């Protein structure tokens, strides 16, 4: 395939099978720096498995996965990959429910992750300012001392996006960010992601077509573990195979 230098994320011929079921079948995807890629596809197309492989949760049976053109992600574990600068938002919003919104962000904030560094950590003024700024961005400033468990579904989604921001990653993997959000929240989220994608690479998995349209990015349609079609949303949604397998007539 293409040369991997200059790419932010490079997947080539990635396959993985669970008990004979091919979740990914020779999947190849490239994301460039400061680029947004939207991934659509039916359930079971392998979207979540792809994220699992990028973030080190699952090891591929075959294929190459490179970050920043040079780091082989298949050799690293989740923590190492996260520290390289890859942040992930889960399909089901996963925040630390028994802790406050502020604490959630403080843990996510990009700081040394070592045991003793964490044990003796005290928030500096810049840290406090940065967390406040993020809280403002994700509109949770008023709820900073509330437990994450008390947030609404949409707010949890926002908090998780806020945690992504706090991590300050180079590559964001965002799985169904607008599920359970109101229309206006959805529009806001699209705006926020577009803003982020100006400086970082973003991969968004989403079913909501109008949201994908709002993102206005390159689109890849996955099915049965490999790429079905690539291009702009209009190109992809006009593809007869995509209509057949995913969008329906």
């Amino acid at each position, binding site marked *: 395939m293409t040369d991997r230098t200059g790419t932010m994320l490079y997947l080539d011929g990635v396959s993985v099978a669970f008990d004979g079921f091919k979740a990914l079948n020779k999947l190849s995807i490239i994301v460039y720096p400061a680029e947004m890629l939207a991934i659509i596809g039916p359930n079971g197309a392998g979207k979540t498995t792809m994220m699992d492989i990028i*973030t080190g949760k699952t090891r591929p049976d075959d294929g190459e996965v490179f970050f920043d053109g040079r780091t082989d992600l298949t050799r690293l574990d989740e923590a190492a990959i996260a*520290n390289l600068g890859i942040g992930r938002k*889960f399909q089901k919003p*996963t925040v630390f429910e028994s802790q406050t919104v502020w604490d959630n962000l403080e*843990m996510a904030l990009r700081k040394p*992750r070592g045991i003793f560094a964490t*044990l003796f950590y*005290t928030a500096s003024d810049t840290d406090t300012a940065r967390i406040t700024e993020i809280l403002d961005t994700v509109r949770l400033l008023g709820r900073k001392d509330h437990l994450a*468990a*008390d947030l609404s579904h949409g707010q949890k989604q926002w908090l998780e996006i806020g945690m992504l921001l706090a991590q300050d990653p180079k590559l964001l993997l965002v799985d169904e960010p607008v599920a359970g959000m109101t229309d206006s929240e959805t529009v806001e989220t699209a705006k926020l992601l577009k803003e982020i994608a100006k400086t970082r690479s973003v991969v968004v998995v989403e079913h909501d077509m109008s949201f994908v349209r709002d993102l206005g990015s390159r689109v890849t349609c996955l099915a049965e573990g490999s790429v079905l079609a690539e291009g702009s949303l209009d190109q992809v949604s006009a593809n007869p195979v995509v209509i057949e397998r995913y969008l329906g007539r």
Partner: protein
Amino acid sequence: MLTQALFRALDKKAIWLVAILIAVAVLVPASNLLLPNGHPLRLPNYAVPLFGKYLTFAMLALALDLVWGYCGILSLGHGAFFAIGGYAMGMYLMRQIGNRGVYANPILPDFMVFLNWKELPWYWYGFDNFWFAMLMVMLVPALLAFVFGFLAFRSRVTGVYLSIITQAMTYALLLAFFRNDMGFGGNNGLTDFKEILGAPISADTTRAALFAASAIALALAILVCSMVVNSKLGKVMIAVRDAESRTRFLGYRVEYVKLFAFVVSAVIAGIAGALYVPQVGIINPGEFEPSNSIEVVIWTAVGGRGTIIGPIIGAILVNVGKSYFTGAFPEFWLFALGALFVVTTLFLPKGIVGLIGQYRSLTTRREQHDRSAPAAPSPAEVESSADPQPKPAE
């Protein structure tokens, strides 16, 4: 940095607890030693080591709480660390007997003479020195916890699997310490101690001093634990407890977080064991019984896990109950203990402290609707959002 962290740890509750413990460390010995016999406020002689024993149990429960309540690691083998600390202290006390033993051998403890051993095994060297022994009290449990934890956490053994292998660990140690060849007195363990730091071990003053030492050690353990749990690392520990893999995706090395908690906890348990032994006068392999370790879990659960004070309350309450029941109705103690396990898990998932907290948050909420602190999530909610337990085949 350290002082800052310590200062932060000294929230109001911790200060109160430490203050109470220091008061207890002074008042209990004073009441026993200074007040005349027959005075209504005088603690009888038997009560001092008994209360001291409760304090060491409280310390053990606190140690377990650090890993279970805060980090989600249910260790069913914490009794092993306690026992190892106890054995290290016991070895010092054995060496102090010197030639006052039955066989009057100045070097070898009686049981070695009895087994016809000619020389002291190498691992008994140095235990005639108090400070070396105290170092071992902390170092050996720490080392065991480190090796065991490193292997287990690195390969991500979690949930019930971890609980079961911790149980296997203490069971293996139980079998090992029963063997005479191990050189720890086999079945009978270590006993017949004479003196500690030159003071006769069963003298009232020694016992009072041991009690005070236990209270102060517990206070220190509380300080260390609250420093850890109030730090950012403590928050990460709770994050690991609630959603382990999410914490990994934030870039934290979950295995090291757990390892840290496990080792610190093992050291606290070891010190507790070391204080326990001179107050009860014996250490034997029975302390490694898996059932002992599980009992510690119920102390912690009854008091309220995930809090500093909960395990202390729980350990003391359950053990006072145990002393009473086994004296008054020995038949019923196991019924009561069994029922306690069932009732606590079914109706008191947050323990006594949680119950009080619920009552409090209810009243405060009534008083001030707007600014109401949101009620702690019920354990069921926390659990459902938490990392899935290794539920097989789902």
